[in-house]
């Protein structure tokens, strides 16, 4: 791909399943995993005569999400029918929003994957509410092809968030999705489980290629059924490569070929054609006469705004400004969600050392959480305990290695930091004790003394190790300091 200047152009459609107790237009449960067709009623089955009634909770979740992604919320929004025939669509149309979506014209700031220190502005065209369809399950037993339909999911509320084609690489897409998921989790509007389909991503991608001073665009491809962030990233990497090779081979451009739909095969790691010639779909949208337009008073929007709290991006900035963290570190912590952010802030408060707190949390705490497959709320070492421990490290009362021993002990025992240290026999070594220990080592190792005096300061390392062996409580930094002072005196 190196012979021409290539710009990758990606736009995303993200379907978010909103965390309402009941469906968008009826009182059926939205819980995942129930036996097929047990969470259905005349309304979600589209039985003749049944009528939809809006679930106000979904409107509020959509407004909250819209505000968090910097969208404007119009005074009036309405429902439209999108008509198409499909076995998992009982009414023959989906209730959706067409020209007056509930959220419009927003953006998301993401960290530029190519440069930690700068951000990228990704436009969001709109976010609209719609009902989900059911699920078809194809059974192919003994030459018979049976299709069974589960309509439990019919009518589940979805918010479809449509970005501008502002994304320039699979890494940016991943970053965008990470940020979006962070916000959705923060707002508690969705479970964001890609495996369960509560977060579904479709990507529209093509390449803009500079060739002999002319700009051409490759045909647009919509990539579907990717069920993890990693799959999205790899599918797009594959697709970009494929489109370039195709263009080199057949020279087809966006003018020669209509948009096609491709699926992602995770095991074969490649996209495959689903619909060759996407017919220009005529959904015959028109306002749903069973539902009145919704007026959203300004107070309702303001009320929703008050419930947002500090949004993840603001937290990332604040952790940088207030605690001097690097953008990368602030991101890692905020990406873990509100509970871990709270944990971090308390550790900093107690220890007074933000950088050390950040590094301990990113390494020791997060690794342990992963090993134990647990959450920060259920973590054995409290933020107060870790804060107290790190305060001692910063004060030089205990070194990092010994602090890890204490940390390990705290994971197993419900005791205070001081008690843990006592149980482990960790005591503060006073300076006369340290002087004596160091003098003893220097006396036993004249060669090291000579080397150091000859300028090979690193030779001192050997003695630090020996000092630790003789007294595990000796702080290596202090030992080094003392050894050098004694040699030079």
């Amino acid at each position, binding site marked *: 791909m190196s012979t021409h200047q290539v710009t990758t152009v990606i736009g995303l459609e993200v379907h978010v399943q909103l965390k309402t107790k009941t469906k968008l237009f009826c009182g059926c449960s939205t819980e995942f995993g129930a036996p097929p067709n047990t969470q259905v009623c*005349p*309304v979600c*089955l*589209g*039985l*003749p*005569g*049944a*009528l*939809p*009634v*809006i679930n106000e909770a979904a409107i509020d979740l959509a407004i909250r999400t819209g505000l968090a992604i910097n969208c404007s919320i119009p005074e009036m929004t309405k429902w439209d*029918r999108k*008509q198409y*025939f499909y*076995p998992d669509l*009982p*009414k*023959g*149309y989906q209730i959706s929003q067409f020209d007056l979506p509930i959220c419009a014209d927003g953006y998301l700031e993401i960290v530029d994957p190519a440069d930690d220190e700068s951000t990228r502005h990704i436009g969001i065209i709109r976010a609209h509410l719609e009902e989900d369809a059911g699920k078809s399950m194809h059974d192919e037993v003994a030459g018979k092809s049976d299709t069974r*339909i589960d309509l439990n999911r019919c009518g589940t509320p979805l918010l479809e968030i449509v970005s501008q084609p502002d994304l320039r690489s699979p890494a940016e897409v991943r970053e965008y999705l990470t940020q979006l998921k962070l916000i959705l989790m923060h707002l508690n509007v969705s479970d964001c489980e890609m495996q369960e389909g509560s977060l579904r991503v479709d990507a529209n991608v093509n390449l803009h290629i500079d060739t002999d001073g002319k700009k051409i665009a490759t045909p647009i491809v919509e990539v579907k059924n990717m069920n993890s962030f990693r799959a999205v990233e790899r599918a797009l990497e594959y697709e970009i490569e494929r489109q370039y090779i195709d263009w080199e081979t057949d020279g087809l451009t966006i003018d020669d070929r209509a948009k096609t739909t491709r699926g992602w095969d995770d095991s074969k790691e490649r996209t495959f054609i689903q619909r060759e010639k996407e017919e*220009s779909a*005529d959904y*015959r*949208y*028109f306002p749903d*006469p*069973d*539902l*009145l337009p919704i007026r959203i008073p300004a107070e309702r929007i303001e009320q929703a705004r008050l419930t947002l709290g500090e949004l993840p991006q603001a937290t990332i900035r604040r952790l940088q400004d207030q605690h001097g963290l690097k953008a990368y570190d602030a991101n890692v912590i905020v990406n873990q969600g509100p509970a871990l952010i709270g944990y971090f802030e308390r550790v900093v408060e107690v220890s007074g050392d933000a950088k050390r707190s950040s590094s301990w949390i990113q390494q020791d705490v997060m690794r342990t959480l992963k090993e134990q497959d647990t959450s920060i709320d259920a973590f054995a070492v409290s933020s107060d305990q870790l804060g107290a421990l790190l305060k001692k490290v910063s004060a030089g009362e205990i070194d990092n290695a010994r602090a890890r021993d204490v940390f390990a002990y705290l994971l197993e025992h419900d005791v205070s930091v001081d008690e843990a240290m006592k149980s482990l026999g960790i005591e503060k070594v006073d300076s006369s004790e340290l002087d004596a220990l160091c003098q003893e080592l220097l006396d036993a190792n004249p060669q090291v003394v000579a080397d150091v005096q000859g300028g090979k300061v690193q030779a001192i390392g050997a003695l630090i190790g020996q000092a630790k062996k003789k007294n595990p409580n000796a702080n290596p930094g202090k030992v080094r300091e003392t050894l050098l002072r004694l040699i030079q005196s």
Partner: protein
Amino acid sequence: MLDSALELVRLQENGDLTAVEIAEKALASVRDTQDSINAFTHVAAEQAIEAARRVDAKRAAGEPLGILAGVPVAVKDVLCTNDMPTTCSSRMLKDFRPPYDATVVSKLREADAVIIGKTNMDEFAMGASTETSAFGLTRNPWDTNRTPGGSSGGAAACVAAGSVPLSLGTDTGGSIRQPAAFCGITGMKPTYGRVSRYGLVAFASSLDQVGPMAWSVPDVALLLEAIAGFEPRDSTSLNQFVPKYTDVLQSSDLRGLRIGVLSETAETAGIDPAIMDVVNEAAKVFQSQGAEIVEVNLPHSKYWVPTYYVIAPCEASSNLSRYDGAHYGHRTDSIDMHSPDGPLVSAYCRSREEGFGSEVKRRIMVGTYALSEGYTDKYYNQALKVRRLIKGDFDAAFSQVDLLLGPVTPSTAFPLGDKIDDPLQMYLCDLFTVGANLAGLPAISLPGGSDSSGLPIGIQLQAPALEESRLLFAANAFQTATDHHQKRPSH
């Protein structure tokens, strides 16, 4: 015998008749007329007797009874009933038994009415003659060679034939008022949203409205009282107080009431002169009761029918797409597994091809076309704009007058087969009625006289939204002064 609900209630209260006796008489009458009139698609004899028994038992036990206690009611077969089929007179829904009752049906049961059965109609309520029913046409009791009108033809005919005193129809473009006029009874289309559409199988959602049919205004008022009201499961239902409609019928003094007569009606080509005579005669009756007659003009009335015949098919094409043979409704036995479009599309096409009749197909095609890309603005969106102008006409008229008076139909009941092959002629049956549906207003059709062959002629009153009481009051005053509503077919 069975022609007044209020009378039947009184007879039971006096102990002259039991609900079971009334139900048996109604069922006998249905049996006697079913072959010649074919007003019913389903007769629920056992359930009716059972319901009547419960009413008698409640009365014997001194328990409180609903306002329709022991009164036989027929229900148009487009309203869901959990213990009877709901076919919409379509092959598509031949075997459909809804798992629930329409709100109006629940309300009938709560009012202790005795549901006799489901009445025949034009398929999916599309038609003006009840000839498009998949279960055979219905005949007009005044002249069995003529149509009872449509689409609530069965609902009108079963009252006119004397089988039941009350029936529920639905009115999308005149489907209560036109058959009421053809059958010489009184029928009302309430304000859109006054009566819930929950459980009414949708034809055109923004126009459909359930309404009462009976011989006289007091019975219409009684039935409306039973079915009106807010339904939280219907977003378009109005959360407004329901007056006791029967209470407004005491006086027939119309002094202070201004009634507008549509000036352009007289010029409408093709209208039977006998009908205009009846309307003019009616104006005089109202005048004699103290009303002031004013000439008014609805400038966009010539666009009623074209506007209606864009909006209604658009909504119908969407509402009827659920009948795809996959979930319920007729499914073809002959899916073409090798169809170039694939077996699934073949299943849809054949199921719909076999399940729907030609008028339904015609409207689905018109609606699909009018909503399709490139044509939405030309047809559907344009029709919505005109609809707003039409509403504006009514607003302007009702700033001058309290009610509007005019004809219901351009002709009296026409012979069977006369218009069935000429859809445009059939559509013109709605000439005077669709305005109220487009504007969502209440309107009533009541007997105003008859033509030279003795066929009933209806007059129509229209009122501002939610002014059903005013409509009933004036209509009742008319019936107090006249006896057209007391004429019965000789059949």
